[in-house]
């Protein structure tokens, strides 16, 4: 080694060290990038597996979007899926596992029983472990009690609750002159009972001349053969079916209705969920309506890119816009709070307003229920104009019939929320 080479190396080494020192100084000025992990606790197997799989992909897709577009600069979002097999007990085990992995945000939506169990578990955990709180982002469990009598500070609901949806549906039905005999069928758990109650109340108030000719409850996610229920509907000469069923319970019901030649109209909450469009196919045209916070064929809807990209990546239809809204809201709250600490973020979420693909969103501070417009759509053939996107490659999709502004479907609340002390 000659002297000059050695000297060169020495200078190079000094230069590198200086650069490194400067670099770390610069890096220390910004916070190191943090990862916010969200535990997704929903069924990924069993009869409701297809719905859960579609929605976990939706969450993962939205998280990638959030990271790509830097919704919260310096923050990377990551989804950690857990298969709860639709069981409240299993969900609590998954919650414990998530907490053990230092995850502070939980997303769930399929099944109010699970949501209730998670809220109970999270409330107890937060009370017993201050400083390690967990926030619950409920994107689809719509029992109204969760934002009324059972409201908690840690729970945020991003879907319109069942009473709000029924308010919109009954207003619409009240205007339909051909509705005379209504049959109610629902899943036998808290949510199903809420739907049935709200339907009866709403119809009695707005159209007392309508006769409720049937009222059935069946076990959740267990029935594979609805032919007897359809036979009852036929026997009662029902012209309209109102149901809160979702997943396989709705797709198999519609399949049985089609097999038996039932021509009644279906008014549903969840005809857009996985499996149902395939069962409806052409036979469902003109007969099925759905009320939801979004559909991909809303007029002047800029959400087309979401639908197209999701289809390209997962070969599936994107309908879980609540996941988008929830993550968007979370990112905005993190930026507003300047921190990823759950208590601060939760306070920042209260009262948050932003414009999303389905209209103006507001997280109501009193009860943490998101106020947003609702849309009633009917199942129609793909025509490129009013129906630009079809579902599940059936050639049929949702044509938007009515846009209900948020004020029309916002209901008062009885929530008396207990809040933790506001951090400074």
């Amino acid at each position, binding site marked *: 080694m000659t002297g000059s080479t050695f000297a060169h190396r020495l200078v190079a080494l000094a230069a590198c060290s200086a650069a490194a020192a400067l670099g770390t100084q610069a890096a220390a000025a910004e916070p190191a990038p943090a990862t916010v992990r969200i535990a997704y606790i929903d069924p990924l197997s069993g009869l409701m597996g297809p719905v859960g799989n579609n929605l976990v992909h939706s969450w993962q897709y939205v998280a990638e979007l959030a990271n790509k577009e830097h919704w919260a600069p310096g923050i990377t979002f990551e989804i950690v899926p857990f298969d709860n097999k639709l069981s409240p*007990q299993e969900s609590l085990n998954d919650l414990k596992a998530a907490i*053990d992995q230092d995850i502070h945000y939980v997303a769930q939506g399929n099944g109010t029983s699970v949501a209730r169990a998670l809220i*109970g578990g999270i409330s107890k955990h937060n009370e017993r472990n201050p400083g390690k709180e967990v926030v619950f982002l409920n994107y689809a469990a719509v029992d109204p009690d969760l934002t009324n009598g059972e409201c908690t500070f840690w729970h945020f609901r991003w879907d319109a609750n069942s009473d709000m949806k029924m308010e919109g549906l009954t207003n619409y039905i009240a205007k339909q002159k051909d509705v005379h005999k209504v049959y109610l069928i629902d899943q*036998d*758990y808290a949510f199903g009972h809420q739907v049935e109650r709200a339907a009866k109340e709403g119809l009695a108030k707005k159209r007392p001349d309508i006769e409720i000719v049937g009222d059935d409850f069946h076990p959740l996610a267990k029935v594979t053969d609805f032919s007897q229920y359809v036979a009852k509907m036929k026997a009662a000469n029902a012209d309209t079916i109102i149901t809160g069923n979702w997943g396989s319970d709705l797709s198999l019901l519609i399949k049985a209705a089609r097999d038996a030649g039932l021509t009644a109209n279906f008014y549903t909450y969840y005809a857009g969920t996985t499996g149902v469009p395939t069962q409806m196919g052409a036979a469902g045209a003109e007969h099925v309506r759905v009320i939801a916070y979004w559909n991909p064929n809303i007029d002047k809807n800029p959400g087309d890119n979401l639908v197209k990209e999701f289809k390209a990546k997962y070969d599936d239809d994107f309908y879980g816009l609540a996941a988008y809204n929830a993550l968007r809201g979370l990112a905005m709250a993190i930026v507003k709070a300047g921190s990823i600490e759950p208590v601060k973020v939760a306070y920042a979420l209260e009262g948050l307003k932003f414009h999303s693909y389905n209209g103006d969103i507001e997280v109501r501070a009193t009860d943490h229920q998101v106020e947003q417009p609702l849309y009633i759509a009917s199942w129609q053939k793909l025509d490129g104009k009013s129906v630009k996107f079809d579902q599940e490659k059936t050639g049929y999709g949702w044509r938007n019939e009515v846009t209900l502004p948020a004020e029309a479907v916002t209901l008062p609340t009885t929530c008396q929320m207990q809040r933790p002390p506001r951090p400074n």
Partner: protein
Amino acid sequence: MSGAPPAGPLRGLAPWAGGVALLVAVPAIFGHGFALLLYAECAIMVVLALSYNLLLGASGMLSFGHAVYSGCGAYAAIHVLNWIGRSHAALPVTLVPLVGGLGGLLAGATFGFLSTRRSGTAFAMITLGLGELVGACSLMFPGFFGGEGGISGNRTVGGNVFGVPGWNLGSDIQMDYLIGAWCLACVAGMRALLGTPLGRIANAVRDNPERAEFVGYSARQVRWLMLMASSFFAGIGGGLAALNFEIVTAENVGALRSGEMLLATFIGGAGYFHGPILGAVVFVFFAVALSQITKAWQLYLGLFFVVLVLKAPGGLADVAARFLAQARDGSLRRRAAGLGSMAGCLLLALLGLILLVELTYHRTLESEGEGMRLIGLGLDAARPLPWVAGATMLLGGGLVFRWLRRREAQALPRSYAGPSRAWWR
């Protein structure tokens, strides 16, 4: 009982002392999250499996519906817990598992009256039917069973234990110690029961019911009493689970839970008192720990169970006892080389099986797009090499094992290669 003569009172106390030490030390050493969960699950399963063995091993009654008793105990416990919270009653939360035991006892007395009228296969069928009946009823009576959501509770409603501030059972460590204490009490209680005349007569009814009747005992009554005792302890286990998880749902009475108890007891060995304890620990290890490593753990558990039924129906305790007996009388040393190579072959075959199962599992999930890692080795499920390797290991290991075993059986006297001792003939 094995043929070894008892060797003094202190020898019998050693396992008890060891157990107590374990129960006290583990939460203290580990102190957080996963280990505490494992401890709680183990201790509860030990109680449940031992209670199941009061039926299976001690009285010869194969039941497929044991979760009915533990589940009824769990429901009783959670309702009482909520009642304590509402009415600030004087009943301490630490005694709630006893309420669970009474709930289980009530269920055992009622359902047992119906099921113990028969024995053998018919009894097994009745328990299956009763289990399904109660499971199906759980949706019909939401007042007691809580419907799909079950019943939740809060174990801190009872105020402080012994009045010590901070001891409100909120933390997992405190709950674990409570579970440990109850577990010890139940194990001691069941051991004592088996030494009583009732326990002995139950053994007699298991072995030869006709002769027991001739001697003057009513086989039916004995079975009913043992069922009530078993359901009492099962109810305590259910009460502990209710307190630990703070939720009780229809799963607590379901067929899956019954199957788990059967699996745990049988894997451990129904012919020994400590068999179910061993089986419970192994089962929880499979269910809670192994499930973190691989998603196919239930397949491994099922295969393990089937292999045990075929080759070692006495369970792990029996296998261990035979090995110890052979070690004691020196015959193990003679077999050592042969056993070593056989174990090696088995290990190879097992690795091959694991490889194949994990590859298949990964292929099913290939839409996830992850590469597969097994013990740190990255493997590609799309290429044929790992499959071929796995199949070769499985077949090769299995065939060599069979050849070695045949050779050993020819070389050694029959008595060393005798059949595994089961509690039934």
